[in-house]
């Protein structure tokens, strides 16, 4: 198990790309491993024949441990001495149009009952397979059975890091602001920016306002090492963006947010979120954040209590903007209201510090012109 960088000490085997007896070339990818939130293909350092695999899928392997043995000697058995059973190749007889039909209808040719000569799959056989009831009574019964799922991959990583977060004494503050000016600013910029093919949600404003507040309150743009009793305050404002993916939560980083324009923040959030969603972000594209933003409002949620990502010391969450009746100049008025929640590590910052940070975030979102400052 080679060192894959970023101080990662272990990785989980996700998939073997070769089996014992396979011939491998130097640098051929042989295994997919999952490190802290990214998947990496590892190449074979040698050419030869795979003698043994030393880990099963799901095993955690430490850096330096043996993953695979490869015969490199000339006496190794040649690759073609492990043939498939004689006369049993995988191919089903079917014309190109029938094969295309099977792909279109999502039918596995190997599972189709063939009625043609020589076991040939006909187009009607494929249509019959596509129309066959997909759910039999047996599968209904199966649905009632309980299922035990072993935590693997990203889910296991999330479970581990959330448990670490449990050690952090959270202090959480809530605030609601009138988002009228924010929505007006977005409407004006949206027409311009989306004309260039860039999506403009409110998230870039939230991130930008947070970055501005962090430059004024650097004690929140930090990580804390409890063992060494040391706080590291960061020079750059690098913000993690909580991103929901098919596999689970991933937090890619937008770097130096304080140096980017609003438009660039929008583009960069889209880029890093795409990297996260396609699971193609490298460890260095995921790490390095000093603060995290979670936009749970995008799921329709009004308010939530975000959990600080260890070893960071704070996290901001934003709820859904919705119309509320609020007093304006002593009269009830309907206005869009944005809920803001910030949680902080109480060991590092007190309630008064936190209130000042939240106040600065709120200020810039109520008066977005301050983002030009």
């Amino acid at each position, binding site marked *: 198990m080679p060192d894959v960088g970023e101080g990662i000490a272990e990785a989980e085997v996700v998939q073997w790309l070769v089996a014992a007896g396979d011939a491998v070339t130097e640098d051929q990818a042989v295994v997919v491993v999952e490190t802290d939130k990214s998947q990496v293909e590892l190449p074979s350092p040698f050419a030869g024949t795979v003698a043994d695999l030393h880990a099963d899928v799901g095993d955690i392997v430490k850096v330096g441990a043996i993953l695979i043995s490869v015969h490199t000697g000339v006496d190794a058995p040649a690759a073609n001495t492990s043939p498939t059973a004689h006369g049993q190749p995988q191919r089903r007889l079917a014309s190109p149009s029938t094969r295309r039909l099977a792909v279109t209808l999502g039918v596995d040719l190997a599972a189709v009952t063939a009625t043609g000569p*020589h076991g040939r799959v006909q187009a009607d056989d494929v249509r019959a397979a596509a129309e066959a009831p997909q759910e039999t009574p047996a599968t209904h019964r199966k649905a009632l059975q309980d299922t035990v799922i072993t935590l693997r991959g990203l889910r296991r990583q999330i479970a581990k890091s959330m448990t670490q977060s449990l050690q952090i004494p959270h202090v959480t503050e809530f605030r609601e602001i009138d988002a009228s000016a924010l929505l007006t600013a977005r409407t004006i910029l949206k027409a311009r920016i989306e004309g260039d093919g860039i999506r403009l949600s409110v998230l870039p404003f939230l991130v930008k306002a947070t970055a501005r507040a962090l430059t004024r309150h650097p004690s929140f743009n930090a990580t804390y090492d409890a063992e060494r009793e040391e706080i590291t305050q960061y020079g750059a404002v690098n913000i993690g963006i909580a991103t929901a993916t098919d596999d689970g939560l991933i937090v890619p980083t937008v770097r130096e947010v304080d140096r980017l324009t609003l438009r*660039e923040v929008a583009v*960069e959030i889209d*880029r890093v979120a795409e990297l996260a969603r*396609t699971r193609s972000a490298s460890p260095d594209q995921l790490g390095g954040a000093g603060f995290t933003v979670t936009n749970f409002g995008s799921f329709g949620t009004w308010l939530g209590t975000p959990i600080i990502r260890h070893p960071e010391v704070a996290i901001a969450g934003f709820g859904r903007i919705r119309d509320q009746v609020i007093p304006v100049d002593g009269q009830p008025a309907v206005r869009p209201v944005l809920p803001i929640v910030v949680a902080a590590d109480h060991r590092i910052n007190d309630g008064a510090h936190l209130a000042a940070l939240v106040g600065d975030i709120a200020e810039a979102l109520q008066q977005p012109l301050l983002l030009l400052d």
Partner: protein
Amino acid sequence: MVVGEMPEGVDMLVVGGGPGGYTAALASARLGRKVVLVDADGPAGLGGVCVNVGCIPSKALIELATSVHDRAEWATRGLPQPGTQIDMVAFQAWKSAIVSKLNGGVRNLLTTAGVEIHTGYFRFSRPDQGVVERSDGPPRHLQFTSCILATGSRPVQLAILPRDGTRILDSTDVLALTALPRSAAVIGGGYIGVELGTALAKLGVEVSIIEAEPSLLPGIGCQAGDLVAKRLRAMTASVLTSTTVTGDDGHRLTLETSTGTEHLDVEIVVVAVGRLPNTDDVGLDTVGITTGARGLLSVGPDRLVTKRIAAIGDITDGPALAHKASAEAHVAAEALSGHRAEFNPLTIAAVVFSDPEVATTGLTIDDAIAAGYTADTAAFPVAASGRAQTLADDLGATHWTFDKESGVVLGAQIIGPHATELISEASIAVEMGANLEDIASTIHPHPTMSETLAEAALVGLGRPIHVSRRR
């Protein structure tokens, strides 16, 4: 990121205007996509290597060479001899007319389909964006919903024989010759080297083909390379197999043969040792994808490398052939447009315009055995064909590879006149899952070379007619 860069939105971006790229653009347009095609050479690059400096111009040269060669051959059979010199300038004019007609045809098809054609060199800058470098303006930033990458390949250069365009040439240079050299060394006995070497030999150039492997056209089997070498030697070309070039002093090549060191004085050197995928300078790192062995991209049956980017043609695994790229283009356009699609052919025929012509499709006997079939082959010699006699060309054979138990045909290798045209019947048979009886029972017209396919099937069935029963 540069402040002020504002990407233009593109629905379907196609990079490369070769047979893969332009087919992908047309197929995408037909699926309702708004397509932008970027090519480094712009409209002039449409048709790619194939139309401009590959398949098409080389076939033009081969036709000229064959006519010149046949004219002499047919002198003994009654053809009057005009006795004039080869006019390479006239040839180039004719060739250029063909190229511009086909290139213009592609441009017309694209513009009629509503495809926008941009000129410039494209590189990705992020997973959904790229930059087109232009010689006549500032770089153009494009943000795409979908992208089909079809950047093709370029000839491999040899470190000891760097191309200079006058003495050391690549295939493109040879096709642009306006005067014939006295002598030429062709480095590489694959299909490109064999085609160019044969054409030059037929035009009267003293040709030496140098191949590192023990035979020409390695990988095709059925002694194709030996038959081609036999014909080349009959034209007084020299074929040096198991030979490599180890040095060059500007006039004379140093060769390492199986028997020792030799020297070869030649006027021009043609380097045709393979092709290199154009994946090294398209910004793949910004998209988060890496290339595998030999710079190729690995793709699934849907051709996708990311959710929004597909790769087709010479930059992906498989033979670097125009018709493979075009077939993949349809799949990529469909897969990126929300349709289920897979590239799953049983055959990608390969054709060599050598003398005799060579064509192969599906599995060879070695492939079939390696895939687990109990397979056999059946061959019918071209010499037993009446039509071959009237063509005065009887070298070669038609071979079927088939599953012994069911007789289902798995592949075919054809060496002989019109092999490049005949191979498609074999491809259809393999794709449709035909067996030897289906082919033998299909009446083939007499007298044609296509009869050899039915005759070879009869050989496989143990009922040969025009050859003696095989033992």
